[in-house]
C-alpha cells in the first residue's frame, strides 16, 4: 500500500517543474479524508492538495471512490442517510464542515455526469442561482446569463433560444448549459463529475475547450472515466483504486513514468 503522505511529498518535489501558472497556491487542502456509506468504506485516508487555477483530474476504475471524493468536497454526500466522514477538507483556509453549506456550494460548483438541466427554460436555468441569491433586476440577470453562456461556449449557438425549454437542447448543449448554470453563481472551484460520459466526441471537445479556458479563472477538479481526457486537459492527475489514492502527479509524469505499477497497469488498460 502506498502511503498517501509520502505521495504528497513526492508530488511537491515534482511541482518545481510545473509551469508557474499552475502552482499559485493551495486552494483545497485535504487531510486524511475517510468516508463511509453505511458499512462501505468508500474512501480511505486520502490526503492531497489542490492548487489554484489547475485542472486536477481524478481517474480510476468504477467504484474506486473518485465520485464520492468529489461529492464530499461540496458536501453533497451529506444529504444521504448513513453517510459518515472523518478527516478534514480545508478550502481557502477554512474547514468546509464549519462553513454554511449553501455558501460552500456556491463557492464550489458542480457539473454532473449526465446533463441535468432543471425543468425550466434555458434562461431560467442559468439565472436560477443568481435569482436565489436575490438578484431580481432584469438587466443584471440578462448580463449574468449572457456572460455565463459565453464562458461555457454556448452563447453563439443558443442566444435566440433562451426561452425554450432546456430539454430541447442537444446533450452537449445541455451539458454546457449546466456548466453555464454553475458559472452564473460565480464559484471559485468547479467539480466536474465525468461531464463527458454521455456525450459524442465533438461535444466532448467543446466541453474540454471550455474547461481549459475556465482554468484561467477557476480551479477545476475533473473526475473522468476517460484516461485520454485526463491526459488532454489535466495539469495533475490522481489515480484512485478501491477507495485509496494510489498516486498523484503531474499528468505528463503520471502517464509516462508512473511510480506505482498499479497506475501503470490501469493506464495501459490492463484492468478497469
Amino acid at each position, binding site marked *: 500500500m502506498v502511503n498517501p503522505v509520502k505521495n504528497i511529498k513526492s508530488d511537491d518535489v515534482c511541482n518545481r517543474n510545473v509551469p508557474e501558472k499552475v502552482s499559485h497556491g493551495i486552494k483545497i487542502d485535504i487531510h486524511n479524508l475517510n468516508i463511509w456509506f453505511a458499512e462501505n468504506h468508500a474512501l480511505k485516508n486520502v490526503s492531497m492538495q489542490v492548487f489554484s487555477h489547475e485542472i486536477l483530474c481524478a481517474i480510476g476504475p468504477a467504484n474506486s471512490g473518485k465520485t464520492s471524493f468529489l461529492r464530499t468536497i461540496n458536501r453533497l454526500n451529506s444529504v444521504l442517510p448513513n453517510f459518515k466522514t472523518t478527516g478534514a477538507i480545508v478550502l481557502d483556509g477554512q474547514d468546509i464542515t464549519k462553513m454554511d453549506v*449553501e455558501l460552500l456550494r456556491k463557492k464550489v460548483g458542480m457539473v454532473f455526469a449526465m446533463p441535468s438541466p432543471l425543468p425550466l427554460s434555458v434562461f431560467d436555468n442559468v439565472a436560477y442561482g443568481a435569482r436565489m441569491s436575490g438578484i431580481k433586476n432584469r438587466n443584471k440577470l440578462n448580463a449574468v446569463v449572457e456572460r455565463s453562456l459565453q464562458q461555457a461556449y454556448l452563447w453563439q449557438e443558443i442566444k435566440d433560444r433562451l426561452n425554450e425549454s432546456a430539454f430541447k437542447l442537444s446533450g452537449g448543449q445541455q451539458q454546457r448549459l449546466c456548466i453555464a448554470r454553475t458559472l452564473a453563481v460565480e464559484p471559485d472551484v468547479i467539480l466536474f463529475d465525468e461531464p463527458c460520459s454521455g456525450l459524442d466526441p465533438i461535444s466532448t471537445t467543446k466541453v474540454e475547450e471550455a474547461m481549459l479556458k475556465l482554468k484561467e479563472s477557476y480551479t477545476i477538479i475533473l473526475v473522468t472515466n476517460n484516461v485520454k481526457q485526463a491526459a488532454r486537459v489535466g495539469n495533475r492527475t490522481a489515480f484512485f483504486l478501491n477507495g485509496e489514492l494510489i498516486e498523484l502527479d503531474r499528468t505528463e509524469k503520471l502517464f509516462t513514468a508512473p511510480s506505482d505499477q498499479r497506475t501503470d497497469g490501469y493506464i495501459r488498460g490492463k484492468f478497469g
Partner: protein
Amino acid sequence: MRKFKEFIIEKLILLSGLTSIFFVVLIFLFLLKEGLSVFQIVTPCDFLFGKSWYPISEPAQLGILPLMMGSLIITLGATIISVPIGVACAVYIAEVAPSRIKEILKAGIELLAAIPSVVLGFIGMMTLVPWIKNVFHLPTGLTALSGSVMLAFMAMPTIVSIAEDALYSVPKSYKEGALALGATHWQTIYRIIVPAASSGILAAVMLGIGRVIGETMAVMMITGNAAVIPTSILQPVRTLTATIAAEMGEAVVGSEHYFALFAIGIVLFIISFIINVTSDLFLHRERK
C-alpha cells in the same frame, strides 16, 4: 399441447377483460334507460336547475339544484381543508421526514384510508357535530361544515399517497442540481421539486375530489339532509349521493321519483367520469 394451453389461457384472460367492459356497459345502459325516463315528466333544464326537490308532493317537484349545491359546497369545503394539509404532508413524507418517521406516517395514512366511511360518519356524529353546534351556537351541528371536515379526512389518504408518489418520482438529478447551486433544501422543494411534480399533485387532488363527491354514508349521517339551497357552510345540506341512498328504499318502482333518482345517478356518473378523465390527463402529462 403446450400451444393449446397457451390458447386457453389467452382466451380466458381476454374473456376476463371483456367481462369488466361488458358490465360497465350494462350498468351504464340500465342507468340511462331508467334515468332518461324522467325527462318525459320534467325538462332537463328544470331538472338540473329547478330550485325545489319535493319528489312526493302532488305534482312532484324534481329540481336537483339544491342537491348539486349541497354536493358542491361540501366538496369545496373538503378540498379547501384536505388539499393544503395533504400536499404538505406528502412533501414532508417524500422530502423531509427521516426514514423512521416516514414509515410511521405512511402506515398512519394507510390506516386512515382503511376506516370505513360509516365509522367515520359515526365518530363525526358523536364528536364533531356537538362541537360545531356549541362553537357556532347553532340549532343543529349537522351542517355542511361537519360533512366537509369528515370528508377531508377521507380524501386525505388518496391525496397524500398519490402526491407522494409524484414527488418521489421527480428525478434525483433535479434535486442535486439545485442543491449543488447552493439552494437551500426548502428552495429546492418549492422551486424545483413541487413544480416538477405538479401534474401528479393535481391528479392527486382530482382523485381526492372524486372520492369526496362519490362519498355517501358519512355525509348522510352528519350533514342534516335538508334539500334546500345552502347560503352558508353552517347550514344543513343534502348531497346527490345521500339523496339516492336515503330515498331509493321508499320510491315506488316506475314512479317519477324512482326515475328522478336514477337521473341523479347519471349526473353523478358524468361528474366522476369527468374528474377521473381529468386526473388521468394530468397523470399522463407527467409521464411524458
